């Protein structure tokens, strides 16, 4: 596990070591977060909103 910072509330978020960029993590503050890589390290940002061209 790695502990990352929620970009919305600043709280701690635990993410699996083998998480991949693009994984969605729900935080207790209600934020939908997306894992991404910054300088080779895992980080969190607000997840992308559903776009018009999304879906099956």
């Amino acid at each position, binding site marked *: 596990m790695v502990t990352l910072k929620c970009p919305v509330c600043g709280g701690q978020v635990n993410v699996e070591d083998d998480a991949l960029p693009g994984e969605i993590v729900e935080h207790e503050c209600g934020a939908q977060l997306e894992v991404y890589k910054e300088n080779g390290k895992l980080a969190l940002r607000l997840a992308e909103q559903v776009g018009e061209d*999304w879906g099956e």
Partner: protein
Amino acid sequence: MIVGVTYDLLRWEERNLIQEATKLGHKVIPIYTKDFYHLFSEDNQFQNLDVVLQRNTSHQRALSTSLIFETLGYNVINDSRTLINCENKLITTALLSRHNIKVPKTAIAFSKDKALEVASKLGYPAVIKPIEGSWGRMVAKAVDEDTLRSFLEYQDYTSVGFKNVYYIQEFVKKPDRDIRIFVIGDEAPVGIYRVNTKNWRTNTALGAIAEPLKIDDELKDLALKVKEVIGGFFLGIDVFEDKERGYLVDEVNGVPEFKNTVRVNQFNLSEYLIRKIEEWIRK
């Protein structure tokens, strides 16, 4: 094999595909689209991928990355041509009807006046859909001309692409369900009913419940014929049941979701797909 999986959002499906391919002894290279770029004048940054699985949620990203990996000479499932055929409903409808595959009665018009005129020929209720888009979003049922007029007006002011192309369909009086059947390689191994008694739209994204489907020969033949016409290796085909006309093909999905199908059928779709790809690559 070395399997590239290109994706923008890691859903259950992508995770499961990566897991199952790894379990079968393949090397999986996840390709997160937002970390990806391609410079045409430079060498390929991915060496020796045997196949690329296209799993982008965004159609633009899916189409673009399929095209790039095809250009690099890779086998891509699904390829860009198939994605175009699936994503644009006018193209899908045109291809299917040209090859005598039954579809719901569908009209296309380019002005509101003509849209209203042709809708009166289809009869009400009529269904209006954006010609690109999915999960049932913005698909609307107009009970009468007045309602349709409002929807046409809404379409004019949306930001969806092709907003001046009006795609209008008869409302098929199907049971409270439709069929989603999967084509994988040359087989149609699994499918579900999507049952919704509360909403006439039967997308599971809109709360429909999945139930296992028994695939009869007619349905299987139909699915494989659709694949022949649309192309691709892995498709999700939406079918309506009409009392008089039988099966009508409504839509084809080029990057299908399958979580509910796996759950209700106890069918390991990811494993099946990977094994079919192994066979295909060996040939």
